[in-house]
């Protein structure tokens, strides 16, 4: 970032925070963060669950997402349709409903009752629909002539994908994948639906125990921002670098 841009952004951020604090103070609400501090261990556990669930779900989403993308890019109509169906169902229903069905409907069939396991897997399956779309768009953004050149040299379809298409597609997928990681960090809060105590659930519990709902929520909001803002700064950086590299040929 240029120094001037950095300065403007920092100034606006500070001003916004100051305005927010001023508004709270003017409301004559008497803040008391002491009870929330007492619950720091609970917040800490929530943080670990949020981080763990997000990371594992992201990894599952990556793996399943590649599968979804390959299904949707298949030459066979039936296979393609299977991929379409998956994406439609996942994107057409709220995650809250999906995770409830997964925990109370599907998990018992598989004799699973570990909330974390079921919850993160459901979150990963959810992410896969969106990540599959990111992969598909990335793969389709690679010029057809690239595959033709690869195949004309005698590379198999798999070799062409792996050595020619994926390396080019991956670069373009990094920014949207970072966005997906941010979305997942927040989406993981819905795991409270099956009783998993991640950050949001921890905050709700603190609020319920101490009647300091507002303080408990402000704390957890700050925690989310601490996780997501660096990611989004990173995404923006990568995006800018990518644009530059596609213009001038500097390679990532």
């Amino acid at each position, binding site marked *: 970032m240029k120094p001037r841009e950095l300065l403007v952004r920092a100034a606006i951020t500070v001003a916004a925070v100051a305005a927010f604090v001023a508004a709270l103070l003017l409301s004559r609400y008497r803040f008391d963060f002491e009870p929330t501090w007492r619950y720091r261990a609970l917040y800490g556990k929530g943080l670990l669950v949020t981080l763990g669930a997000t990371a594992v779900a992201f990894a599952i989403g990556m793996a399943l997402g590649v599968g979804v993308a390959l299904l949707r890019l298949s030459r066979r109509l039936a296979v393609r349709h299977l991929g379409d169906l998956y994406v439609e169902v996942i994107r057409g229903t709220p995650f809250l409903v999906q995770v409830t069905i997964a925990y109370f409907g599907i998990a018992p069939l598989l004799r699973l009752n570990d909330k974390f396991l079921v919850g993160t897997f459901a979150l990963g399956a959810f992410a896969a629909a969106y990540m599959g779309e990111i992969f598909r768009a990335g793969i389709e953004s690679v010029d057809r002539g690239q595959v033709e*050149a690869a*195949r*004309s040299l*005698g590379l198999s379809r798999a070799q062409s994908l792996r050595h*020619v298409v994926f390396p080019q597609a991956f670069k373009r997928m990094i920014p949207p994948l970072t966005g997906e990681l941010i979305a997942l960090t927040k989406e993981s809060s819905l795991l409270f639906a099956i009783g998993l105590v991640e950050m949001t659930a921890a905050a709700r519990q603190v609020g319920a125990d101490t009647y300091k709902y507002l303080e408990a929520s402000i704390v957890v909001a700050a925690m989310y921002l601490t996780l997501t803002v660096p990611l989004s700064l990173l995404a923006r950086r990568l995006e800018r670098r990518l644009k530059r590299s596609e213009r001038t040929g500097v390679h990532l």
Partner: protein
Amino acid sequence: MTLPPAPPLIALRGVTRRFGTVTALEEIDLAVSKGEVVVLIGPSGSGKSTLLRCVNALERPDAGEVLLGGERVDAARKDIDRLRAETGMVFQHFNLFPHLTALGNVALAPRLVRGQGDAKARALLGRVGLADKADVYPDMLSGGQKQRVAIARALAMEPVAMLFDEPTSALDPEMVGEVLAVMRDLARDGMTMLVASHEMGFAREVAHRVVFMDGGRIVETGTPVEVFERPRHDRTKAFLSKVLRA
């Protein structure tokens, strides 16, 4: 008594290819012998690219067949990858792999398919006059240099024939010469070549045979002198007077 003529290296028999209502190729018969240089000419949309792409199994004929060294070129056969490697394809827009260096582009297929090292790829870059550009990415190369890397890449699998689809028509005029020079060298070395090109000078000088196509059909074929000096068909005359005037 003379020996029977050797069977053609590339043979198209009754090849037809349609795209919806457009007939890109209609019952094409064409044979190219080993060491022969055949230049395809014809107006835009006459089917030159489609013909070349059928030889490389990038297009599949709706009817007829393409034979390479007696083997049927068919995208559905199991060993199609091996058969594809027997022809080297050079594209109008180079289609270099942007994430690989010049050397990486040339060395990729021999490494993946045959487990070979870089030595031959380096030698090929030298052969097209780009030994010093081995570690440069395509973005940093001029159009002419890109196309020469692409030719080196197409040679890397030691093909029995080379297919060129208007290799100079995306180039700035001052770069056409360097690419044609490489192609001329290849022809001189006895490479079998099937070339779609608007470079009439090149065709006249290098081609053993010129094939004029129009509307998906071969209208006439003959030596460069026959086709350029004494075209028999009106369509050929009309086309030639247009391109030679330009």
